[in-house]
């Protein structure tokens, strides 16, 4: 089952290293990692999506929680919340296919964020599956490059 672990860390690589090291050491199947700013200055947020059972996720949380540099750690099954990743996709678009590209973007609520000559960079946020579907829809234009972030997540239920 996909579980989201959401950690507030001291904003330094050593804390991140320690947290990721603990995950690696347990040999858990990690689906995605995302690191960004935390809620306050000096904090970083690490979101981990990991496929494991409740008990293992819970034990991992307790381990993570006690690490130096980890300020807080919460966990919830992804199905009890939302998890979204960001994708940037650079496609080839000759001017005559521009409208067609916009149609695809509309369908997925994606936006064109840059338009180098004969190209477009489109941005999409969504679940992993949604992003993949979008990428598939863009394939007919010719994908030049793309990059996806790890997922960030929030619970719908109040975290215990």
């Amino acid at each position, binding site marked *: 089952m996909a579980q989201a672990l959401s950690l507030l860390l001291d904003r330094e690589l050593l804390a991140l290293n320690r947290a990721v*090291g603990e995950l*690696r*050491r*347990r*040999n858990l199947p990690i689906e995605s990692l995302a690191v960004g700013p935390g809620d306050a200055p000096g904090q970083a947020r690490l979101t981990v999506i990991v496929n494991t059972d409740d008990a293992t996720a819970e034990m991992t949380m307790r381990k993570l929680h006690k690490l130096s540099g980890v300020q807080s750690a919460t966990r919830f099954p992804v199905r009890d919340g939302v998890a979204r990743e960001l994708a940037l996709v650079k496609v080839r678009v000759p001017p005559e296919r521009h409208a067609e590209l916009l149609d695809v973007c509309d369908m997925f609520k994606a936006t064109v964020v840059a338009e180098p000559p004969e190209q477009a960079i489109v941005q999409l946020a969504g679940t992993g599956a949604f992003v993949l579907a979008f990428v598939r829809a863009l394939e007919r234009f010719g994908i030049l490059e793309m990059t996806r972030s790890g997922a960030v997540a929030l619970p719908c239920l109040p975290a215990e």
Partner: protein
Amino acid sequence: MSVAELLSGAQILCRVLVEEGVDTIWGYPGGAIMPFYHALPDVPEIRHVLVRHEQAAAHAADGYARATGRIGVCVATSGPGATNLVTGLATAHMDSSPVLAITGQVPRPMMGRDAFQETDVLGITLPITKHNCLISETRAAIAIATEGRPGPVLIDVPKDVQNQKTEYRPVSGVGRQVSSARFSLTPDTQHLTPPDDRVRQAARLIAAAERPLLMVGHGVILSGAYDEVRRLAEKTGIPVITTLLGISAFPESHPLHLGMPGMHGEVHVNRAIQHADLIVGIGLRFDDRVTGNTKGFAPRAAIVHIDLDASEIGKNVPVAVPIVGDARAATARLVAAVAPRRCEAWIAEVQGWARQREESYCGDLSPENIVAAIHDAAPDRCTIVTDVGQHQMWVAKLYPYRRPNTHITSGGLGTMGFAVPAAMGVKLARPGEAVWAISGDGGFQMNMQEIATMVQERIAVKMAVFNNGYLGMVRQWQQFFHGGRYSATPIWSPDYVKLADAYGIPGWRVERASDLEPVLARASAQPGPALVEFVIEQEANVFPMIPPGATLSEPIEAEPAAAAGD
């Protein structure tokens, strides 16, 4: 046609080691590696040496690797066994030595639960290995360790994997070559041909230079570029400097050989660097012990840098002409490109700066006399393995190395305790020649337990201990830079002759130069290990010395005026 067999992970590991040509491994058993040790007696092709401490297993594997150029293998159990390997792996990592460490790990279902003797050895060794991983293909691990710029690789094998039965089909012949190129971590610079224009540019600089120098390092030994370097020197007449790890890459007796640079380099060698207008560096990394303060390093010189590892180029000193590639191939190209020339006036100028080393000795049992006597006891076929400290510098500067790769020492990490176990590895790699482990009284006491290994396994290493009653090199720094406060540097030693006797090997104490020759002759004649203690002057110093942070132009050449004291 090979037939598939049902084998345990441990059996497969043993088979693969044999197929990869491993004939010697160094290790120590324990719970998590027991399936491996259970399988081991079925492979008589592999000789296992039981060490007395896992650190020694790693150093011995390192010594073996440095002496042969092939993979050196060490084995330890999980937890304390694995952590004991750490210093040895860090040593091999700093000096680019191809070592394979195999560690047992708790069964996979127990991992991450702080099981008995569980340690995150992958996490611990991450920054001190070229590569490490859980389980892994052993063949790939060996390929990564030995290809490109070599380095240590650790594979952590959970006990359940060692026990698990799988179908195994032996691979043989050419088909079994695994390349590390599959792993993005090893860009294949080894087979990369340096661009012609770079080589021509270097050749033009060599033709135009008035004060050129060749500086050669460990890369020349690793790639076996001895002939190429020698031809380059002889065709151009450029004098050759060998770094600590480059010693023996170029014969000391050669008229073009200048000596060692850096912190304890001879004054004329460092001065040559400071006056040079061109430095051609081959297979070295311009380490801070070589350059002194880089701001003032070789201020007049353009630098041509040949190295396999692109990340070394420009790391410490600015480089005018970078040539990324194997030292041997790249130097061969350079030899072909250069025009013959001479550098007689320049060499005469440098030789004019040479001077007698300041004698800081009162007694007659000087480092000069001891090193000369060790050399004379086995003048033809001998490899010297040194530890770290004053004796290391004396031996580096005074022993007349003639044959390639006959000087082995821990350069990058400066690991005390290296010499004795590493020499065991060298001895098994070179059974036909004398191998001397030369240590100080401090470093010797760090791993002297390995005498028991030598006795049990009949490894005939000759051990020399320079006993000055101090952690000499640190004492020297205290004398020069810390007001003569000898804090925690006086060190007591056991009676080494009795110690030797307790281990059942012959031992001698030498206190006068006149005893050197007869004692060393007897020690050399011993079929097994032997120990010789040299009682040397307590407060002798290594000269010259560039103070830490100073440039190569600022050597201390004699005893500082009576230390301020406190």
